């Protein structure tokens, strides 16, 4: 593995009750880049993310993070190594304040690091500073998504994995979200983004993969895929141009 890649998924096979969900999936995430994975519902995106986060074992192949295999590692261990995920549905702590949610994001960091990171987060997401005492579960969808991303950033990720961050957000909020993700990348964090919002996702992707029925069917720079006929046929029902 070359050190230009923070994450490398190699020939991954995953089964659920004997049914193959991922079949020989290989992809890699370049350091300080946004890599996008798109695919229809049931294509295997969530399964792949579960495997990457240590929540699902695989039957063959390997996942290598920062030069070392993550086989058999529990989520908490991966977090300490700098692999953080914002899951679909966010899984915030709804009856805890914004501040508490953020503090727990830095659960494995020292108190001093937590204080410093907290300041950084408030700088990056000013809306959170205004709402430190609000309960996570009472915020709007967009604010919750910001909080979920900020909570993950509190863990000082090398790789941030985002599962459908635009789901259920208003269009204006979606645009803001993608700007935010680009800003995070520009700070040196690698991003693996799974999205159904194909158009926006590809527009922001440095590199992208298309997954279909458990296989990677297409890959290339985001701008290239955005113009491809296959993508247009699959997602917009028409050919490009």
């Amino acid at each position: 593995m070359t050190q230009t890649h923070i994450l490398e998924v190699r020939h991954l096979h995953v089964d659920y009750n004997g049914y193959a969900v991922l079949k020989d999936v290989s992809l890699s995430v370049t350091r300080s880049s946004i890599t996008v994975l798109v695919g229809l519902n049931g294509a295997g995106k969530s399964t792949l993310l579960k495997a990457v986060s240590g929540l699902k074992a695989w039957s063959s192949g390997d996942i290598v993070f920062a030069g070392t295999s993550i086989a058999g590692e529990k989520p908490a261990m991966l977090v300490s190594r700098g692999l953080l995920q914002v899951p679909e549905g966010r899984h915030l702590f709804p009856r805890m304040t914004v501040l508490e949610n953020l503090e727990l994001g830095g659960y494995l960091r020292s108190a001093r690091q937590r204080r410093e990171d907290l300041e950084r987060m408030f700088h990056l997401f000013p809306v959170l500073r205004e709402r430190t005492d609000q309960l996570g579960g009472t915020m709007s969808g967009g604010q919750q998504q910001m909080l979920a991303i900020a909570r993950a950033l509190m863990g000082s990720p090398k790789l941030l994995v985002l599962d459908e961050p635009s789901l259920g957000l208003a269009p204006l909020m979606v645009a803001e979200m993608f700007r935010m993700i680009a800003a995070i990348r520009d700070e040196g964090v690698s991003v693996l983004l799974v999205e159904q919002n194909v158009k926006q996702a590809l527009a922001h992707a440095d590199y992208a993969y298309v997954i279909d029925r458990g296989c990677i069917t297409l890959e290339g720079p985001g701008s290239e895929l955005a113009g491809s006929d296959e993508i247009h046929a699959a997602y917009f029902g028409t050919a490009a141009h």
Partner: protein
Amino acid sequence: MTFTLFLDLLAAGLITGGIYAIVAIGLNLQYGLMRVMNIAHGEFLMLGAYLTYVLHTTLGLNPLATLPIAMAALFLVGLLVHRLVLRRLVHSSPNIDVFEARGLVASFGLMFVVQNLALMVWGADLRGYTYLAEPLQLGGVIMPHNRLLVFAVVVVLSAGLIAVLRFTLIGKAIRAMMQAPLGAQLVGIDTARLHPWCFGAGLALAGVAGALLSMVYEISPGMGEPYTITALIVITLGGYGSIVGSLAAGLLLGLVETFGMHFTSPSLKMVLSYAVFIGVLMFKPKGLFAK
């Protein structure tokens, strides 16, 4: 009703309710956190009561001094039970629902085992000792010292527990695990490592509640069962996973029972509890304080 009688009932209700709260918080740590509906919870309360009884009557230890011993002993019992029973179930259950069902059945078995072990060792007789039973007069209310002591301990314990859960990182992590188990894992909280500790803490609370009860009431191997039921009612009332809710609901149930029994009949105690329980299930199934 005279004002003195009102104060009398209020004090009695808060003391009973305080015990309910401690027992229920213990059960909530098990059910709210890891979905272990520990039907044997009351049996561990009984063990705490006998431990204090034995340490006091054979070694002459001050019952108050046995409280930390009862807590520590039951905490260790909790680690052991988790290791021998629950850990296996976690590994052998395909999902959390199956785990919950199996945990329920396993804890049923545990209830019979622990209760019958106590019967073998101590027999079925009621046992008790006298401790600080002299009455104390406070503004017209006459109350034995031991009850006030029980209430003071309950207040200190609950306040301490809430402070830990609210202000320390580990306490916040425990609340986080209750509110969003997956979210907790994804911020790096090692839930598998914390679960046995929380189960132990739940039993420690049952143990200390039992130890406190032994100062006030007579004890027997079957004393724990009603407390399991009451704890179940309290955590439903207060909300699964809400510690402050359990505290408030425990106090409330204690008051409802005490005042209710005064105005109806002491034999209706369980009827009153169940009426509250059924009422909550019908009208506020997510708990009194759910938003």
